[in-house]
């Protein structure tokens, strides 16, 4: 038995928003893999539940003019088997494979992963790199906001009272002209929380893998109290040949991150991992950019 004090299962999104608006303490629950654990641990913040599990308006994926729309209730398992998502946002699929184990991926949703506000959410780095937008619906209506800035602190997000995340919007990686890569450093290869997660998106000025960096986007999880993008390192890389860009990033990075010491890893060790993963992911993303650009060239000349 979970210690709910109240439980409602609305049949529509409108009803769900109304129920949340009526009770400021109520929380939406999707897959429950964060909330139900918290309840087992005896936390009182999740005693009033509005159950949005399986609401049809939050399910499914679609694409419109190169923009991928992912319903917030989409599970990581559903993402990983979606050919649409694999084609348009391969970086997100790469990260989804790192989440927990099969049973959790079968119930844990992307919406819950974002709204839980954790610094270690595996979807955060790819979504930040891909400049994802969030489509929220609440008592005041609908709004579309960038994910960047949504995280306010550990476990805190910029979700207004009564709001529900309806979908995540991502412009396709191809349309954004990026090669991408994500990796999670953790003690175990599965069923473990990240010590550091790192995602990179790279566009080169020419199609060589050591070409000039036209744009770099770099994001980390667990490197600060919230998932972060790295504006200083990104600016330092711009306009440099890849090998120099990687060095410039390593030097600039400590202005963008503030890794903490915990039982998992000491702060200086985390900083070492951050620099190492940044170099690896930038190089991998650049290689992928070059090979997809080459493929494109071929397709065009055929």
């Amino acid at each position, binding site marked *: *038995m*979970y*210690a*709910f004090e109240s*439980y409602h*299962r609305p049949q529509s999104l409108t009803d769900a928003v109304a129920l949340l608006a009526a009770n400021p303490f109520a929380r939406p629950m999707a897959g*429950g*893999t964060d909330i*139900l*654990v918290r309840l*087992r*641990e005896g936390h009182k913040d999740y005693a009033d539940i509005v*159950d949005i*599990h*399986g609401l049809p308006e939050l399910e499914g994926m679609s694409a419109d003019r190169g923009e991928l729309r992912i319903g917030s209730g989409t599970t990581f*398992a559903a993402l990983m088997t979606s050919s649409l998502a694999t084609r348009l946002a391969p970086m997100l699929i790469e990260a989804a494979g790192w989440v*927990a*184990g*099969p*049973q*959790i991926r*079968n*119930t844990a949703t992307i919406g819950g992963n974002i709204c839980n506000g954790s610094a270690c959410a595996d979807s955060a780095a790819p979504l930040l790199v891909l400049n994802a937008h969030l489509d929220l619906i609440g008592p005041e209506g609908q709004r579309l906001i960038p994910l960047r800035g949504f995280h306010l602190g550990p476990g805190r997000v910029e979700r207004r009272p009564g709001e529900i995340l309806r979908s995540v919007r991502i412009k396709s990686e191809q349309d954004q002209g990026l090669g991408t890569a994500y990796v999670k450093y953790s003690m175990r*290869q*599965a*069923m473990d929380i990240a010590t550091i997660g790192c995602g990179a998106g790279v566009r080169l000025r020419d199609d060589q893998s050591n070409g000039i960096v036209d744009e770099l986007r770099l994001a980390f999880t667990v490197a600060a109290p919230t998932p972060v993008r790295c504006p200083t390192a990104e600016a330092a890389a711009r306009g440099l040949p890849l090998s120099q860009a990687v060095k410039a990033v390593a030097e600039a990075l400590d202005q963008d991150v503030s890794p903490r010491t915990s039982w998992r890893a000491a702060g200086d060790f985390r900083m070492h991992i951050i620099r190492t993963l940044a170099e690896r992911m930038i190089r991998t993303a650049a290689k992928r950019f070059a090979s997809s650009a080459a493929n494109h060239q071929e397709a065009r000349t055929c």
Partner: protein
Amino acid sequence: MLTLSCTINDRPHELTIDPRSSLLDLLRNQGLTSVKQGCGVGECGACTVLVDDTAVNACLYLAAWVHGKRIRTVEGEVRDGCLSPVQQAYVDAGAVQCGFCTPGLIMTTTAFVQSCREQGRDPEDITPEDIRRAHAGNLCRCTGYETIVQAVRQALEQPDPSKMDTESTAP
């Protein structure tokens, strides 16, 4: 209280439940004690059951969510007194020691074998690493996992019963 209908191991049920119940509570109250509570927080997989053929942790799943769904536990895998091919593979490989993890593992393997077949994956191409990743949500304190990997391999290599049926009924 909440009323729901679902099938458990192919038998239809109409149940009245407390909305605070987990699927684990529901199933154990029905006498299905193969569903074990190890950790209660999604870490160990001892409570794994299939909901519409998808493996979930019954300890982190609301009973209310199974309305209209089909649940499978290890009790229902025995047909006409015969173990399922996956169960038999665990016996043959010696993959059962204390047995606490076994029902959950068998359900994870059952879902894994079924999905490999649906995707038309050749068992030859499935590596021990793939098998381990597919079973990463189930802990076992006794076996050291090697015999479990062998059991899964044996289960994958058995002929597909659904294909055998179509062949035998083909003219």
